[in-house]
């Protein structure tokens, strides 16, 4: 009886991993590929580790399986976020049919800074000039004091 449950869990996990790999081959874009691989593979690992827990049914094995599931669920979104951010900064091409890129008008790729929509575009430059003036004012003072 427990074998049937374990079999269903293992087959479900393996097929979710296969769907994730199929998505990583078939989808057109970096972000859509990450969307397929992260979620599908995480669910596959969860199902397979549930199968391992039901097959052994001991405290030590269940604790290790829970640790694996917890670690994968903790790290997969962080890794996807960091990788998507790096891909956007490097300038990976999007799919041709992408409808909207909301970061494009608010992000300056040269200064690597992000503006909010309420502040105008020129506020950044004014702030930068002000900081340069402050540095120029403070540098002779520090020279005289020392």
């Amino acid at each position, binding site marked *: 009886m427990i074998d049937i449950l374990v079999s269903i869990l293992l087959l479900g996990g*393996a097929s979710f991993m*296969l769907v994730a*790999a199929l998505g990583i081959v078939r989808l057109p874009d*970096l972000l859509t590929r990450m969307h397929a691989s992260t979620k599908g593979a995480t669910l596959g*690992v969860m199902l397979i580790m549930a199968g*391992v827990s039901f097959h052994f049914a001991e405290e030590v094995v269940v604790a290790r399986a829970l640790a694996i599931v917890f670690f994968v669920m903790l790290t997969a979104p962080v890794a996807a976020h*960091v990788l998507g951010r790096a*891909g956007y900064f490097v300038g990976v091409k999007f799919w041709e049919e992408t409808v909207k890129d909301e970061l494009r008008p608010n992000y300056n790729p040269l200064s690597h800074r992000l503006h909010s929509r309420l502040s105008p575009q020129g506020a950044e430059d004014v702030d930068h000039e002000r900081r340069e003036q402050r540095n120029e004012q403070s540098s002779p003072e520090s020279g005289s004091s020392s």
Partner: protein
Amino acid sequence: MQTVINLTLGLMTLALLLCFVRLVRGPSLPDRVVALELFSVIIIGIIGVHTINTDVKPFLDVAIVVALMSFLATVGFARFLERGGQRND
């Protein structure tokens, strides 16, 4: 039970092959890093099925270590892309 395990290992081997296709064909480096991350997650699943197949419980420790290494590798690749890529700043 043995047939189910063989079928599961076959499915995951097929997933590894598809992932390898993306690793070879990927047009940019982030695509290849995504493929490598999926590699390690599929390998964690294979280790789980192998644990059931052989009844050797310490194999799960190997799965924990593989999960940790894959996260560190992905973050390292992302830092490399952000800092040492072709940007000129």
